[in-house]
């Protein structure tokens, strides 16, 4: 019974890894690729580690697998945020079917500075870059 569950966990983890790899090959854009790889790989590592913990059934292995799972769950969103921010700043091309880019009116590509939608910072940004008239629409 426990072997059946373990095999199911191993296969499910590997298949989620395969889905993540397929997404990173097939999807058209850096951000969509990150969307596929981060979530799929995190879930795959979680399932594989659950299978390993079920195979050994020892406290030490439980501690290690929970440590790996916790570490992956903590670091994958931080790493994805860092690389997505850096990619946007470098100037990646978004997918041509992208409907909305809410960061564009709040980001100055010359000085590489962001400002929030608050009134004070928006005024400062207007003084710096006169061509961002859309800032007023995005207030509040």
């Amino acid at each position, binding site marked *: 019974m426990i072997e059946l569950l373990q095999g199911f966990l*191993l296969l499910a983890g590997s298949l989620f890894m395969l889905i993540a790899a*397929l997404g*990173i090959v097939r999807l058209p854009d850096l951000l969509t690729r990150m969307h596929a*790889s981060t979530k799929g790989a995190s879930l795959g590592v979680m399932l*594989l580690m659950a299978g390993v913990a079920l195979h050994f059934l020892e406290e030490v292995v439980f501690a*290690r697998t929970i440590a790996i799972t916790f570490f992956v769950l903590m670091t994958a969103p931080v790493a994805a945020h860092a*690389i997505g921010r850096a*990619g946007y700043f*470098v100037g990646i091309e978004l997918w041509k079917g992208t409907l909305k880019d809410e960061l564009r009116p709040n980001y100055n590509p010359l000085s590489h500075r962001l400002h929030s939608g608050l009134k004070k910072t928006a005024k400062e940004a207007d003084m710096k870059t006169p061509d961002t008239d859309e800032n007023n629409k995005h207030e509040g």
Partner: protein
Amino acid sequence: MQILIHLSFAILALSMVLCFARLVIGPGLPDRVVALELLSMIIVGIIGVHALQSDETSFLDVAIVVALMSFLATVGFARFLERGGRRDD
């Protein structure tokens, strides 16, 4: 059970190949960094399955270290892209 372990190895190897394809053809440096991060995640999974196959619990420490190194490498590449990299815009 051995068949399932081997099948899991095969699927993980296939996903490594796909990820390596993106690492080669990726148009820019951020795509390649994302592919590297996914590659290290797959390596963590392979180390886990190998620990299961060989009944050796010490390999899980290696998996922890690989996960830590991948996180540090990704954050380092992100800082490099933001501060020192060549700009495309």
